[in-house]
């Protein structure tokens, strides 16, 4: 599954992304399951709010972390996220 660069990306309505104080981590929650996220994955997913497309997410994160060349890493992660149903595009 590939990310459509034109369309905005939205976090899944049937999953929940939240900060877990006890684990000091962001996690994705879904029926009877949980995925623990590292910081960069969590930063990407928090921008998937249905208003930004791929390029906008990349530029926002590059600006936030004062860096460049993130597009490949971010695209690869979002493809995994799409395959797992954590995000959607429609």
């Amino acid at each position, binding site marked *: *599954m590939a990310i459509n660069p034109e369309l905005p990306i939205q976090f899944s*309505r*049937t*999953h*929940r992304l*939240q900060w*877990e104080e*006890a*684990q000091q981590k962001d*996690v994705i*929650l*879904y*029926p*009877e*399951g*949980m995925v623990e996220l590292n910081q960069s994955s969590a930063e990407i997913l928090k921008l998937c709010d249905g208003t930004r497309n791929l390029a906008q997410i990349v530029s926002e994160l590059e600006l936030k972390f004062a860096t460049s060349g993130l597009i490949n890493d971010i695209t690869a992660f979002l493809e995994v996220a799409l*395959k797992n*149903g954590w995000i959607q595009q429609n």
Partner: protein
Amino acid sequence: MAGSNKINSSPPRWLLAELTYACPLQCPYCSNPIDYAKYQAELDTEDWKRVLTQARKMGAVQLGFSGGEPLTRKDLTELVKHARDLGYYSNLITSGYGLTEEKIIQLKEAGLDHIQISIQASTQELNDHIAGTTSFQLKKEVAHLVKKHGYPMVLCVVIHSENIHQMPEILAMAEELGADYLELANTQYYGWAHANRDLLLPTKAQFEQAEQIAQAFKEKVAGKMKIYYVVPDFYENRPKACMNGWGTTFLTIAPDGVALPCHSARELPGLDCPNVKDYSIEEIWKESKAFNFFRGFEWMKEPCRSCDEKEKDFGGCRCQAYLLTGDMYNADPVCSKSPDHAVIQQAIDSAAKNTVSVDAKPLIFRNSKNSRLFS
């Protein structure tokens, strides 16, 4: 409290709140204790709220509202609301019986995250026979309503010899109902299922055929539907890593407030399982005799003690060791290294013999009348 062999513990992640043993269904593989009728007392709303608050503070995040049938509790919506305020991900594990559209909306507004509906078979006749209650059409309607109101919809079908031949139809039904997840739970032989094992345990050939069909389906629906397949451990050579290790992850609270390291642990002797009316969740999790009983590896006998796989499967299931060998310290006899491994083949042979016998014994349905016979 006792805590003689206290070991540093990881915090609980999963809280199973068995709100009640009351249930309109009579499934003969129910995991509730066969003598559940003797536990009449139920925690009140304030007790449950305290339990949810204390467990959440320790780090529990997945919460299952279960039973019995949790919908029979009048305070379910109030508890769901409390759980949402605390940040739990709440799963309602229900037969669907008694779930109206109004209730589905009310629970959604209160913050319920997901509803898991059990269906017993792919046909009305068999579903209603196994459930002991006319419920098939109603369950299908509830499944549609759950989808309609935006919940992830999980169908759970417990698999045994009476419905295993319906695997293709069960999968088609899940697809037709638009399930987001399908749990194909091969029966685990505890509680009522243990009592009915001769009538429920399929043959190896039946398992292999059903698994093959389920596997092909899993590939076909990848990306649309997720399949959870609970393995039939009687046909495995290594035991399951039961509960992800004793007292590491799972905390079950029974309807009367007894805290259990797994939902079958009530059957084990001498654990002195503590009650949430007497102790806090933190005391229970960290200090109690029951939760420390099988933590770590010190309790193990051979062949587990010196086994290089003990950190992978923790010696398997304590309840299975107890039910099948009479000694809860033994290796789970599912393991081919267990000196008692032959009991598994005996169980399989006994079930196979029963299916060809003319005077086969009848299923014992899970209801209060039958439960009192075991009390």
